[in-house]
């Protein structure tokens, strides 16, 4: 169970491989990568701010909830901060389990909960030089997290 918060990019395939290395009991690995979109060519970059220390701690609490709900063999989460340009990776969730149901469900749960609970904030910078400022939290994200129950 590895959680990393970092400025650097990550290798999603290598992270997934690490979950199965040296073992033969894993039947399913699900890898989710969240990417920065260009929003119709208007976005120059995102600036992601985070709360060092709490970001890792809060993700760890979300991971503990996921492990209570599903039988996970392994798990990797990487969340980047700093400047991220369109096409670049922002976040990785990789889950490993005996069967696909737990791996799929846990990955989706982890993303839904991380979006509403992990202390990260995005600011958008536009290609025309304007900064529209901080990205607003989406009600759809709250609804996605809420459907898993408290």
């Amino acid at each position, binding site marked *: 169970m590895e959680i990393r918060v970092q400025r650097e990019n990550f290798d999603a395939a290598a992270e997934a491989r690490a979950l199965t290395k040296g073992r033969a009991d894993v039947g399913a690995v699900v890898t989710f990568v*969240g990417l920065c979109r260009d929003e119709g060519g208007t976005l120059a970059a995102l600036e*992601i*701010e*985070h*709360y060092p*220390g*709490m970001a890792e*701690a*809060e993700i760890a*609490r979300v991971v503990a909830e996921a492990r209570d709900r599903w039988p996970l063999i392994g798990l990797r989460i990487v*969340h980047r901060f700093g400047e991220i340009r369109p096409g670049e990776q*922002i*976040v990785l969730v990789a889950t490993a389990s005996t069967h696909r149901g737990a791996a799929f469900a846990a990955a989706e749960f982890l*993303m839904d909960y*991380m*979006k*509403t*609970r*992990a*202390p*990260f*904030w*995005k*600011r958008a910078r536009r290609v025309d030089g304007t900064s529209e*400022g*901080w*990205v*607003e*939290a*989406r009600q759809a*994200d709250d609804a996605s997290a809420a459907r898993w129950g408290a």
Partner: protein
Amino acid sequence: MKAVYFAWVRERIGKAEEEIDPPPEVATVADLIGWLSARDEGYAHAFENPKTIRAALDRAHVKPDAKLSGAREIAFFPPMTGG
């Protein structure tokens, strides 16, 4: 205690962190928001809409009615937009 601010809360207040020493009658997170808001226009602007403010005590999310007693660090920030 140490207070830390993030995103537009930090920008409106004009600093990322500071030491604060609230009086004993400031017992909860909501009390502290009121106490800080009375300091100047920057704080008042940051906290003008309490519904958009989230707080953490010692790096764990808390509700506005949470007691401050014993906490070393309080953080104020907008709703999260990571992922």
